[in-house]
C-alpha cells in the first residue's frame, strides 16, 4: 500500500517533503525573528567532505569519530550584531547533514501519511483517521523539537536543540533536564510517525479490499 502510494505520487511526495524541510528551517528563523527581532544577515557554507575527512584522520577511535561527524555543519545561517566589537554572532542556525537527514525522513513520513489520509478520507473510520492525524502531528513535533539546530553564545557547547527549547520559551532548567533524553525522544518521535504510516496503510488496505469485495465505499457497504 505504501509502495503503491509512493509510486503513484512520487513527484508530489518529493515536492511536499522538500517543502516541509524548508518550512521547518524557515520556522526556526521565524521564531528567532519574533523572539530576538532580527533576520539573519550572514550565511556560511562549509566544506563538509573535507571536514569529515579531517575528523576521520584526527580521531583514532571510531566511537569518537561518529558523534563528532554528526555535529559537523554544512551551512550556518545567523545574525551578526555589529554594535559590539567588530561584530559578534548573536545567534546561529547550523545545519548538520545528520539532522537534515532526520528532518527529511520525518518530512517523507508526514507526506506519505498525508497522501494515505487523502486516499482514506472517504472511509467511515473518522475517529481512527483523526487519531492517526494526531499521531502524525505528535511524531512530527517530537522529531522537529529534537532536531532544532540553533545556538548562541553560551560557553559550554550546549546542545542546540536545548537552546532551541529555551528560545521557544521553555524554562532553562527544564530544557537542560530534558537534554539526556534527546536520543530517546527523537526515537519515540520516529516510532510514532512510522506507526501512524503503517496504520494508515493497513486502514487503506481494509478500505481497498472492502471496495473490491462490494464495489462500494465502506460507509455505504
Amino acid at each position, binding site marked *: 500500500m505504501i509502495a503503491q502510494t509512493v509510486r503513484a505520487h512520487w513527484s508530489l511526495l518529493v515536492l511536499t517533503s522538500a517543502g516541509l524541510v524548508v518550512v521547518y528551517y524557515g520556522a526556526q528563523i521565524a521564531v528567532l525573528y519574533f523572539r530576538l527581532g532580527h533576520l539573519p544577515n550572514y550565511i556560511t557554507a562549509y566544506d563538509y567532505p573535507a571536514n569529515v575527512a579531517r575528523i576521520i584522520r584526527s580521531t583514532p577511535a571510531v566511537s569518537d569519530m561518529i558523534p563528532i561527524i554528526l555535529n559537523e555543519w554544512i551551512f550556518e545561517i545567523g545574525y551578526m550584531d555589529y554594535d559590539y566589537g567588530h561584530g559578534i554572532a548573536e545567534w546561529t542556525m547550523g545545519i548538520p547533514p545528520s539532522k537534515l537527514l532526520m528532518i527529511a525522513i520525518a518530512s517523507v513520513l508526514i507526506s506519505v501519511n498525508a497522501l494515505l489520509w487523502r486516499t482514506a478520507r472517504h472511509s467511515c473510520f473518522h475517529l481512527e483517521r483523526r487519531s492517526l492525524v494526531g499521531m502524525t502531528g505528535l511524531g512530527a513535533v517530537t522529531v522537529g523539537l529534537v532536531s532544532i539546530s540553533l545556538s548562541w553564545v553560551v560557553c559550554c*557547547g550546549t546542545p542546540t536543540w536545548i537552546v532551541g527549547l529555551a528560545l521557544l520559551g521553555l524554562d532553562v532548567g527544564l530544557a537542560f533536564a530534558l537534554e539526556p533524553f534527546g536520543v530517546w525522544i527523537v526515537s519515540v518521535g520516529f516510532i510514532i510517525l512510522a506507526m501512524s504510516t503503517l496504520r494508515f496503510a493497513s486502514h487503506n488496505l481494509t478500505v481497498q479490499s472492502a471496495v473490491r469485495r462490494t464495489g462500494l465505499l465502506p460507509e455505504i457497504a
Partner: protein
Amino acid sequence: MLGATNIVHAEAITIGIGHQSMCTDTYAAGIIVKELKLLEKHLPRSGKYVDVTYNLKWDDYASGGPITNQMLAGKLDIGVMGDYPVIVNGAKFQATKSLNTSLVSSTGYNLRGAGNAIVVPASSNVYSLAQLKGRSISTPYGSAAWGMLIKALEDAHISLSDVDLKNQAPSVGAANIATGKIDAHADFCPWSEIMEYRGTGRKIYDGSQTGVPYLHGVVVRKDFVDKYPEIIVAFIKAIHDAGEWLKKDPALAAAQMEKWTGVEKEVLYLYYSRGGHLTVDPTLKPQWIETLEFDHGVLARADLSPPLDFKEWVDDRYVKKAYAELGLDYAAQSKEIVDPLIANRDLPNEIWHAKDGILSYPTTAAFLKAAADFQATGVKINAAYVYDHDTGLKLFGTTAFYVRNKDGSYTAFLRKDPAETYAAKTGGEVSTFTEAIARQAI
C-alpha cells in the same frame, strides 16, 4: 617530554588557534599574539624544524564552547578560553575514548574574581542582589558569569526559584539592559564594562564579591602537543611577550587593541592598565587548579560537565620550559599573586583626557576637582578611573559612588550599599559622580 624525535623536515605544519576577540582576558594568548606576530617570532626553526613551513590559522569565536567543538573536529589545535569553558573542554575530551587536551598555560587572572558582574539598567532603582528577588536575570548559561551568578545567589541566600533566570547571549543581554527589557544581566568580561562605559548599565554585583578567582587558560590537543612540544613552548613564550607589551604602555596597547577588536579602548584600559582588572601571567599556580576544581564542582552539580581528572589534564611542563628558555624564574613567578586590595592601595586615580592622554591624581578629591574643571570648560574626557575602597578594583569614575568624609577627602565605592555603610560609620555623605563633581564646582 620535549624529546620527541619526529622528523618534520620539509613539512608544512598547520597550527589552528581558536581565540576570542570579544573576551578581554584571552587577548594575551589571542589577538595580541596574532597581530604582533609574536608566535612567529618564537616558532622553532632549527633541528628537526629546519625547512618547516608554518601555516597559522587564527579563528575568532564569540565564546569557548565552539572552540572546543572545533578542537574535537580537528580544525583547531590550540584554544584560549575562560575558566568554565576550559573545564568543559578538558572534560569533554576526557569523555572520549581516543582524544585528550592538556591545560598548558594560564593567560591571566583576577584574584578576587573581577571580570564577571551583574548589571542593571542605568536608570534602575535596584542597587543590591537582594532587590533582585522576584525579578528577571539573564546570563549566558554555563559561562563563567553563570557560575558567578549561581554562587552569588547562594551566598545571598536567594534560591533559584526566587528569580526568573533566562539564558541570553551577551549581546542580547546588553541590548536588553539598554532598553530596560530585563531587570539584570550577568556576564563575563568585557560586557559589564561595555555597558557601564556606554552609560546603559550599572554594576550591582562584581565577581570579586564571590572571592573566587577568575582566570583564563590555554588548552592544546594532546596529539598536537605530543608531536610538536616545541611549538607549544613557543606559544607560551609569545604569551609572555604579549604581557610585556601590555605593561610597557597600557594606554597605547588599549588603543591598538581597540583597532583589532572593536572593543572601546577605555574599557580595555580598565583591564590592562596598572591596577587594572587583569594580571597577565602564564604560570599555572596551584591556587588556580584549586579554583578550577571548585568551578568544575559547580558545573557538575548542574550536569553541565562530565568528570575531569585534573592530574591528567593539567600539564605545566611546557610553561616551565618556556620560562627556562626565556631565562625567567618560574618558581618565583608562580608564587607571585597580585591582590588588587594591596597592590592598588596607593595607585593614583586617572582621567583619560581626549587630547592629553592619561592624567593622574593622587587623591580622589583632586580627581573630582579636575573632572569638575574639565566639565566646566567643556573639555572632553574619554573616561575616568578610581579604585573601590573595599576590593581595590579599578572602576569607571562615572559609575562609582563617593563618600565625602568629614575632612573633605573622598572615598570611592563600586556599590551604593557599602558606600552607605561606610558613610554611616564615618559620618560621611554618599554621592554619585555627577553630584560629587557638582559639589566641586560650587
